[in-house]
């Protein structure tokens, strides 16, 4: 099996391509700013004792956002609470993020997860605050089902370096490859001594590509290609988008080089983000906690006798 490194870094030659490139870079960079601002706010609220444990994405947010950006509606994004930036890239609003973080009655998941553990059935996002690797197997199964049903949907699972050691990874990559699951596995975060997955992948017979963790456009392209292949029945891909050194803000640099993102536009963006965050925070702080009787709701599709409400 060949394990090429992605190099399709958008070499389009005409004006249309340039525009597309520009809009993609703009999306990556602005979503990155939104995610960074949200993370800073959540961390502040956690330190003030207002929120439970927050898992910051840090520099991994570049990969999270770019990977999610390559998905289509109907795809499923899985990850851990740390992957909140990917949910933003799929359309999660600041307000939804803050209602979830505060666990209010307005949270679509009824205030049941730690900050960042977004579950959104409409956007197709499931981020867990539990086992850091179980969702890899879920992605394999979702992608297997998609192939069986012959539908152009994929599952994408984000994961960190520690998950590489877990038995779940062994199961997920093996099952996914065996059944040509329409699944994509994206490693993000620091490469802290683990073997790059391009080198480990032969064990599972899965296609693997490696992309610099700070090159959002390259990650987007690699995931888009993986998606196209998966949907075409060519099987799953592991994209190793981990950073093995300090981050270079490549997307921002590319944006500058391409368009000269003017400072006033930048300022506008920052202002818009700040205002939106303030409003979102206000809404979440004003929202009540979930009603007591929700404690015993949504355990099952029905409500058997033993699930009375607390008084």
């Amino acid at each position, binding site marked *: 099996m060949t394990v090429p490194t992605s190099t399709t870094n958008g070499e389009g030659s005409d004006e249309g391509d340039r525009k597309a490139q520009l809009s993609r870079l703009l999306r990556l960079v602005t979503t990155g700013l939104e995610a960074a601002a949200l993370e800073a706010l959540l961390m502040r609220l956690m330190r003030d004792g207002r929120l439970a444990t927050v898992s910051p994405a840090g520099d991994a947010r570049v990969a999270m956002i770019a990977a999610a950006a390559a998905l289509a509606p109907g795809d*499923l994004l899985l990850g851990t609470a740390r992957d909140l930036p990917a949910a933003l890239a799929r359309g999660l609003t600041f307000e939804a993020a803050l209602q979830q973080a505060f666990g209010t009655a307005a*949270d*679509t*998941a*009824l205030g*049941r*997860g730690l900050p960042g*553990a977004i*579950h*959104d*059935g409409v956007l197709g996002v*499931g981020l*867990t605050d*539990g*086992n850091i690797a*179980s969702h*890899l*197997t*879920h*992605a*394999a*199964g*979702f*992608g*297997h*089902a*998609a192939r*069986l*049903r012959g539908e152009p*949907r994929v*599952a994408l699972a984000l994961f960190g370096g520690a998950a590489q050691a877990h*038995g*779940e990874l*062994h*199961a*997920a990559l*093996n*099952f996914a490859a*065996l*059944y040509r699951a329409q699944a994509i596995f994206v490693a993000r975060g620091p490469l802290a001594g683990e073997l790059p997955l391009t080198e480990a992948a032969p064990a599972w017979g899965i296609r693997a590509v490696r992309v610099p963790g700070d090159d959002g456009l390259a990650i987007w392209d690699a995931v888009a290609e993986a998606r196209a292949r998966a949907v075409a029945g060519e099987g799953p891909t592991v994209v190793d988008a981990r950073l093995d050194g300090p981050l270079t803000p490549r997307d921002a640099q590319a944006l500058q080089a391409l368009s000269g993102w003017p400072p006033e536009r930048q300022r506008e963006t920052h202002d818009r983000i700040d205002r939106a965050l303030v409003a979102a925070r206000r809404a979440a702080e004003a929202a009540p906690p979930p009603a007591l009787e929700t404690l015993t*709701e*949504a*355990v*099952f*599709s*029905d409500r*058997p*006798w*033993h699930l009375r409400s607390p008084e």
Partner: protein
Amino acid sequence: MTATTTTAAKAGPRTMNLVQAVGDALAVAMAADERVVLLGEDIGKFGGVFRATAGLHERFGADRVIDTPLNEAGIIGTAVGMALYGMRPVPEIQFSDFIYPGFDHIVNELAKYRYRSGGQFTCPVTIRTPVGGGIRGGHYHSQSPEAYFIHTPGLKVVCPSTPYDAKGLLLASIRSDDPVLFLEPKPIYRKAIGEVPAGDYEVPLGQARVAREGDDVTLVAWGAMVPVCEEAATRLSGEGIECAVIDPRTLWPLDLDAITERVERSGRCVIVHEAPRTCGFGAEIAALVQERCFLHLEAPVTRVTGFDVPFPHTLEHAYLPSVARVVDAVEASLRY
């Protein structure tokens, strides 16, 4: 017994054994709903070690009767993923003794996905797995793990003891929008024989079956312990002692009323199960019955169970509840 073919079956009820009834239910479910897929070790071409899936691979193809690698976490984990897609996967774990490598997926993912997403994501997965001993299976082919799953909020747990119930409950389980642990009593896979209607029907989850009425002592048992209790009841009836035998069928959520109604009349309750006694499901039933029927009880609720040891091999019949042990317990309850 003579089992006719599936197509001929449309004509009327057939006499079959419990594992055939399981296979029949799977065929009906798969024919009725494309979203139903089976997956497990050796379930495809080979038809499963107990032949539960025999013929299904030929009929429905390798994409719907999926042979998997030996990895229970992978089997259950991918089933969760398939369910998130909208399928109705029915994984088989070859022996319930080997379900534990997938335990994390069951208790932390399958059981919690609906709750943790506030009802947005559901996991209609039915895990089929054989339970029970007395078949010379030793530690690892004999266990009865129901209590682990009953203790886990978010799971429904089913264990039939007749072919009729096996088929009807399995169809209801597969169509339920909730995760179901469907425990199949393998000691009576072939011994339990009965009439099974052709085609489609469901036995609703959460309703007990009264295998026998009797107002002296109320026996509660499931799976392979039901015929043991029935035999004990027959023997006791010869001595003028009439026992009710309640088979909950759905272990959780339990049809508690079916039990308490009868205990209110009998004042005596004996629970029988194969699993080790301590923290077994018998403890929960005992706790519930004394909570609800306290003023009616003439004797403590007692339990006839497996011992608190790993499942043995040579001495398995000393380990398992026997007719004699059930009879003794009933008599002790009456003497109290």
